[in-house]
């Protein structure tokens, strides 16, 4: 985050060049002033030389006039000649001065011209440099914007008072809020209403302290949905220990948060199910002990019932995440633990007739499994599967009782059982636990309708229970 040379130094470079040109301009102005002064000096000197030349001319003329008529020089003429030679001397000196001045003037003129040329060259060079620096700055800004719009994050900048000054196009793509609307504190309106005040407070605190800003909040998608984001912002220093601006990135963490939530729910569900299972185990032991003649009988029944519980836990844990256990899987798992299942009706005593893949509510699976277990063990010990001529047919259909409300109707029919006991046989056979499960537990816990009875040739049981609505949104599959 520290230093962003491609963003800042071209501007510095431009300022430096501007200073340098200013210095050159000042030097040029000084040289021009010098030149003007020299030209004035030269003109003054020329005037003086002209005047002296005239005086000398006049003096020569006077001398010639006076000398012509006389043979011998007269004192007056001598004085005039003296004056003349003084004037000549003055004129010579003035000429020399003029000469020196003219040379000086030529020299400064030459310097001035050369300085002017240098200045022009430097100005041209600096102009090129500035133009290229500006071009680099433009490229740098363009490529920065391009990069800023490539990343999946929402990026933004804020000034040192926390007012938003820029954000990348992702912000608009996601929120539908234009840059002008997002500027200053407008972005807060794109947040979930519940998150606005706490986020504003946290941002103000970060701006006041100059410390990294980090917070999770929900941002409204242009569709109206909200998703969770993680926002982070760092202050940029101006090199003198003061915050010059803030640079921030906002990352979509919605899926992550959902997964975390789901994990927490599943963990709680696992603990719940484990504790519930412990309680069920305790109850099964107590009930079995109470209804068994002796310990060996109780041990046998407990082992069978735990076997059934273990199978159903296996089914529940093997299903894919969010998947459900199907009725046919549950039924064949239970039956296969006791009798060979084949598709050949000639050799098999068991016939299963119903659609595969009818998914059950997960909260129903355990109790239903225990009920099917009791029906199966009774059939194996006393019913259709205890006699060579006996037959068990389990049929099931799905019935739509109302719009979106489906029920599974299971028909358990045993035939070919000789010596069906005349009355209340269940208390004599199996201790009544199975019957209690079917007639009381299934209605109580599953909202099922059940009937358990004895026909002349075997047990006849029907179970009708509610199914989960297909793809019902909002209902997790573990319910």
């Amino acid at each position, binding site marked *: 985050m520290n230093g962003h040379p491609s963003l800042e130094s071209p501007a510095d470079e431009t300022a430096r060049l501007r200073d340098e040109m200013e210095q050159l301009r000042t030097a040029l102005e000084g040289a021009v002033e010098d030149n003007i002064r020299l030209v004035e000096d030269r003109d003054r000197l020329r005037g003086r030389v002209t005047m002296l030349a005239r005086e000398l001319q006049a003096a020569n003329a006077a001398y010639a006039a006076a000398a012509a008529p006389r043979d011998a020089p007269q004192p007056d003429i001598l004085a005039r000649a003296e004056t003349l030679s003084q004037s000549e001397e003055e004129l010579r000196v003035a000429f020399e001065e003029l000469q020196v001045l003219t040379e000086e003037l030529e020299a400064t003129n030459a310097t001035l011209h050369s300085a002017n040329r240098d200045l022009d060259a430097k100005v041209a060079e600096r102009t090129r440099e500035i133009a290229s620096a500006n071009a680099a700055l433009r490229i740098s800004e363009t490529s920065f914007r391009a990069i800023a719009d490539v990343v999946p994050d929402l990026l933004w900048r804020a000034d040192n008072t926390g007012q938003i000054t820029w954000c990348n196009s992702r912000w608009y793509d996601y929120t539908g809020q234009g840059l002008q609307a997002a500027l200053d504190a407008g972005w807060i309106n794109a947040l979930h209403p519940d998150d606005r005040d706490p986020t504003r407070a946290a941002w103000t605190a970060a701006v006041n302290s100059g410390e990294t800003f980090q917070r999770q909040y929900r941002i409204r998608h242009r569709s109206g949905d909200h998703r969770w984001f993680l926002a982070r912002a760092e202050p940029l220093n101006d090199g003198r220990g003061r915050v010059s601006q803030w640079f921030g990135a906002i990352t979509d963490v919605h899926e992550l948060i959902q997964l975390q939530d789901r994990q927490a729910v599943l963990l709680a569900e696992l*603990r719940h199910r484990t504790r519930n299972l412990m309680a069920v185990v305790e109850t099964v032991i107590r*009930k079995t002990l109470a209804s068994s003649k002796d310990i060996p009988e109780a041990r046998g029944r407990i082992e069978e019932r735990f076997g059934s519980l273990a199978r159903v836990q296996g089914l529940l844990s093997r299903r894919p995440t969010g998947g459900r256990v199907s009725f046919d899987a549950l039924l064949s798992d239970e039956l296969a633990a006791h009798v060979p299942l084949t598709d050949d009706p000639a050799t098999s005593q068991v016939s299963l007739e119903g659609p595969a893949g009818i998914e059950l509510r997960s909260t129903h699976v355990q109790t239903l499994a225990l009920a099917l277990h009791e029906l199966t063990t009774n059939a194996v010990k006393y019913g259709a599967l205890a006699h060579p001529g006996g037959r068990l047919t389990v049929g099931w259909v799905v019935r739509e009782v109302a719009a979106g409300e489906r029920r599974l109707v299971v028909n358990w029919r045993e035939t070919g059982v000789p010596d069906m006991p005349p009355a209340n046989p269940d208390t004599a056979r199996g201790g009544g636990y199975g019957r209690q499960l079917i007639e009381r537990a299934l209605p109580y*816990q599953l909202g099922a309708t059940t009937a358990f009875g004895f026909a002349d040739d075997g047990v006849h049981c029907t179970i009708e229970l509610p199914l989960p609505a297909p793809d019902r949104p909002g209902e997790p599959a573990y319910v």
Partner: protein
Amino acid sequence: MSESAHAPRILVVEDEYLLAEDLAETLAGLGVCVLGPVGALDEALELLDTLLTTDGGLDGAVLDVNLRGQMVFPLADALAARRVPYVFATGYGPEVLPERYRSAPLLQKPIQPRLLLSLLIGVHVLQ
């Protein structure tokens, strides 16, 4: 218990049949007049109305926290409004309870019936 004027009347709310039946039987064996058990929230709320208008009234309740996906808290509120003591029973940890129910007694399943009774009757006696 046998010395009290009437057997304490306790409502059992639990959606797992085996647990409900077992708890009801055990409580009955301890001299409690068990009301219910019921396994659904709306049934429990209906039963509560009936119970409070009958002579015997209600001395306490044990509430399974999660009833087939529904939280039992409306029933807890209804009980609290009528000053009927209750105990939560759950297979979940205490974190499943919202903040304002954290002070209510919470039993982890499997429930120890005598502990339940001492909590309920204890609270009952204190009131």
